[in-house]
């Protein structure tokens, strides 16, 4: 099987996913239903939307730890503006532009100045989180809910075509877009080249600074979009949301087979990684497993998946 040779990690993920779905179908009568699958997709939507862009960023050998803060900031900014009379559409537009500004800050520090992405994006993480909390405080509280116009929530909750929740539509669009970028565009090709060998990429005339910067801005844009979607759906904007989201995003990406050093990886793999995490979490709540065991299982899934794929790798090689 050429496919197996190509990427054992994806095979392992598909295997685990299948095992989870079959196992949970037997274990819980409530598992196999459209509603439940919708729930799982909604749960992973934010992770997948951000990870679509962040995956390609990681393919270039960079990453962004500030996504959770940018998400929180964007949610609260959108709520703040909507509450204070800005039209929903305009508010979303402004929020997305400001979100891209955070991406621009990351691009400036990491890509242009050349600071290590961990420190630079942790810096942004602090700053954006601080301002998210401050915006809520300027509004007079710890979060924003009262006084939000009705269409604020409608935006997030009204299903598209009366069928599919908007977050899922956006998620599918994001995944589709990035699979397309990865496979069919110069941007994708160049991103892989940058991750595979930065020096070669420069000497081949690839605008490495520009492309990495663009991806940072895109990641922040998607984080901002997720923030808008999330607050709209929940109907409450809290500056504390999205803590640890950066880990969820990176875990999905790495589970999907993307290397932190760059050069390899795929959007599809990331989707599989996110779904494995999503279904595991869903299954454990369905089965009523206490919280402590959930975190242990989460760690187990992470390590286990990689151990398994290493094993497959060795087998495929032998």
């Amino acid at each position, binding site marked *: 099987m050429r496919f197996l040779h190509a990427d054992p990690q994806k095979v392992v993920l598909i295997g685990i996913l299948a095992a989870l779905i079959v196992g949970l179908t037997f274990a*819980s009568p*409530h598992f196999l*239903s459209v*509603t*439940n699958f919708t*729930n799982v997709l*909604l*749960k992973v939507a934010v992770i997948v939307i951000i990870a679509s862009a962040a995956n390609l960023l990681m393919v270039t050998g960079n990453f962004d730890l500030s996504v959770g803060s940018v998400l929180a900031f964007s949610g609260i900014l959108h709520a703040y503006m909507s509450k204070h009379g800005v039209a929903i559409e305009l508010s979303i537009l402004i929020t997305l532009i400001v979100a891209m500004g955070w991406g621009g800050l990351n691009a400036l520090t990491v890509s242009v100045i050349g600071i290590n992405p961990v420190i630079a994006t942790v810096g942004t993480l602090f700053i954006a989180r601080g301002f998210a*909390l401050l915006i809520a*405080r300027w509004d*007079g*509280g*710890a*979060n924003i*809910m*009262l*006084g939000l116009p009705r269409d604020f929530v409608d935006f997030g*909750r009204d299903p598209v075509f009366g069928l599919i929740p908007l977050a899922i539509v956006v998620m599918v669009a994001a995944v589709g877009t990035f699979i397309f970028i990865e496979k069919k565009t110069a941007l994708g090709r160049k991103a892989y080249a940058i991750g595979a060998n930065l020096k070669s990429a420069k000497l081949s005339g690839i605008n490495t600074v520009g492309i990495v910067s663009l991806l940072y801005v895109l990641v922040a844009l998607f984080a901002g979009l997720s923030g808008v979607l*999330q607050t709209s*759906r*929940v*109907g*409450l904007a*809290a*500056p*504390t*949301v*999205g803590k640890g989201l950066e880990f969820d995003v990176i875990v999905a990406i790495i589970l999907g087979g993307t290397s932190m050093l760059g050069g390899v990886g795929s959007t599809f793999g990331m989707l599989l990684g996110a779904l494995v995490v999503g279904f595991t*979490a*869903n299954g454990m*709540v*369905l*089965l*009523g497993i*206490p*919280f*402590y065991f*959930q975190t242990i299982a989460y760690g187990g899934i992470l390590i286990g998946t990689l151990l398994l794929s290493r094993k497959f790798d060795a087998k495929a090689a032998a």
Partner: protein
Amino acid sequence: MKKLLTTAVVAAGLTATAAMADDVLVLGKIPYTLEHSYHQSIVEMFADHADKYYGAKTIVVDGQANSDTTLSAVENLIAQGVDGIALHSPDIGMTAAAVAKAHAAGIPITTTLIYPETKNAPHIAPQEALSSHREGVVAAEKWIAANPDKPIEIAILDFGGFEQVVHLRTGPFVAGVKSIAPDAKVVAQQNGFGNTVKSMEIMLDILQANPGVNIIFGGNDDMALGALAAAEQLGRGKMDNGVPLTEIIAGVDGGENAMIKIFDPNSSFKLTQGQVRDNARAEVDTLVAMARGELAIDAWMEIPTLSQEIDYWNTTLAGAQRFLQENFKFEGNLAELLAN
């Protein structure tokens, strides 16, 4: 660097706490975490009361929901030589260490909510357990009255086994429900992380696994609101003019976000409880009394404050309005907001 910091501080529009005059009392307040509205309000009430009644200044150092950071905050305040410390500790064990440190420095200290085991300092004790029990009773009664044929199934969102929440909130609530409906069952209990978004996600899963859930208790209002959002997404979360249809949701804190839902006759979030002002005042009064030598600083004393139970059926709108004004400096008009 100095310039940078100066600009940052000036930009913040904040003035550094200037040298303190000796005759002015300075009180330190350590909230659990400023990221929640309840704690923001209590800090504000504390500072107001200290200033208004005693001309005292307040220094706030955030505990950031972490026992290590909170203990450092205590040490920081001791180093600043405050005249009293009001501590909301996140952990029972750490509380003892904090009290010992303050006492060693001869500084009065009060604790609140987290019940200390070393009983050697005044403790401001909001009577949450009573109100939680009462919430349980009201919820059970209302559900049985409207749906006598549907046995009660309870789902709980907590902070991941945080024990104080078990003693003050989730435990008494369940006991309250069971006092009315002995066969009521807790079918799900999960960590909602005190967070609306996480609570919504988890409640979706819980309701998927347990469609029969009809009483939901959130360990705070943020989690209750998350549960409500989840229920609404599933087409639940409704009441018919105060008559339970799908479920009853209860929370804790009593902020305006919760209140607007509670007094919406068609929403299923119907109960909460809270107190801010009395707690803050009790803390200030006790500290000042100790600082003035009117109270021994190392004598155990429990100062109960009422945590007011609020629900759609038994609290008047005017009462809720007053509650918000007194405790959360609410400036809006609940009735007007509801009309929109």
